[in-house]
């Protein structure tokens, strides 16, 4: 496992095995704009300047506020990842994932919701190289 960057409510690292950047949120995480910026900055750092596929584990996320969602969908954010798989599994994380996907899915930085980590990584591998 590459460098792991600890965040206020989670962590980011580059998974050497899959080649995918991973974001994990701690239990009951509520993500605000500052968290969003911290997260994207960490993604850019572990990616080493490359646009890599991103797996965001949202199963512990309780809420993501409007400005954070906007930031995740912004060009500044999209420039740091190639595609993103949102791993959900709870009612709340499903809600956040679905709304974000509906508003911010973008052709040049596609996103998709998954309930299976294996399926998510398999999809993301398609964006490597």
């Amino acid at each position, binding site marked *: 496992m590459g460098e792991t960057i600890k965040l206020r409510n989670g962590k980011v690292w580059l998974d050497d095995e899959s080649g995918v950047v991973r974001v994990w949120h701690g239990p009951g995480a509520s993500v605000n704009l500052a968290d969003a910026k911290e997260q994207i900055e960490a993604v850019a750092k572990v990616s080493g300047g490359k646009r890599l596929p991103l797996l965001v584990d949202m199963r512990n996320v309780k809420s993501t506020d409007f400005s954070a969602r906007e930031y995740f969908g912004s060009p500044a954010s999209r420039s740091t990842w190639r595609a993103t798989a949102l791993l959900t599994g709870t009612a709340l994380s499903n*809600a956040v994932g679905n709304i974000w996907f509906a508003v911010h899915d973008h052709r040049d930085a596609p996103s998709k919701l998954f309930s299976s980590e294996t399926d998510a990584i398999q999809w993301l591998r398609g964006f490597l190289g």
Partner: protein
Amino acid sequence: MTQRSPCDPRVAQLINRLSHVLPGRSGELGAEATEPADLDRVLAGVDALVDELTALRGAASRSEKRLEELSGMIAALVSFDYEKRVAISDQDDALDGFALCLNMLAEELAASTVSKGYVNNIIESMHDLLVVTGADGHVRTVNQAACELLGFSREELAARSFGSIFPGLSPDELIGRGGVRDQESECRSRSGATFPVSLSASVMLDNHGVIEGLVCVARDLTEGKRLEEERWKLREAVQRQAIILEELSTPLIPITDEILVMPLVGSLDEQRARRMTEMLLQGIVSRRARMVILDITGVRVVNTEAVQGIIRAVQAARLIGAQVLLTGIRPDVARTLVELDVDLGGVITFGTLQAAIGHAMRRTARSRRAGPAGPTGRAGRAGPT
């Protein structure tokens, strides 16, 4: 020692049934035990069932309450209230997920949609009258300014026809023309009186390009017209005064029946010189003057334009038989005339008005004594010198 009654086979059946509805308690109930069942275990099972039912009923009641809250949230979104939010519990169940979705939807709509309240506020804040008609020509929407200007309530206006508000206009005709911009029209108020307006009307189309109606905005021109009339009156007064001033600035003073004096004051531009010549000629003809004294003491600036004006006046006066004397040539004026190399064409000049008047009187007296009528037809006068 408690005597246990023989086991009723129906007890085993009860245990069995309880195990089905309480699968997690099968072991406890001893459903698979080989020993005969007893009433204690049945009772335990029934208690467990009661607990579960009570919990379920409580959950159902709470869910119903939460569903009511969610319905309220949906109603708020439908009425463009994007401020409302619903509470999310710690249970992280389907209802919480739904509640979070609705909260996020409200945020997205607030960010991307102009609320109805905001639009209404814009319309009601307008000073100009707004009337929206349907495709059938009936009034559908009016704003507060329309009610105030026309003297009707909204309900009364909604019942009125377009033509009763804008006499002489038809919505079909306006639609046919594709609308109008800043057309001067009239509005009729409740009292029956009309007032002038500047009308702009736009054809309203729906998403499919079908004509939905007409949006009319009218600006009350009453005050504007009144101000315009006042400005017009003021302009006329100023023009009249300018004429009077002009006339006063070129006075023609008769000294005798045959001698006129025109003192000039101020600057002498082309327009004023023309006016001066006109007055001079009119005066000479009407009074049958033989001599005119032009006093330029008060002419501030004697430039080429002024000199040419004077020369033209002199020439014109001569043509109709009058002699012109020039007085009031100041030293600086004399210098200017020399610098401009002006030929005054034999005009007699005098240093003072007094001298010029004296000369004029002597000449006219001599002429009278001399004999027959000159060109002016008066007896005893010679022609112009």
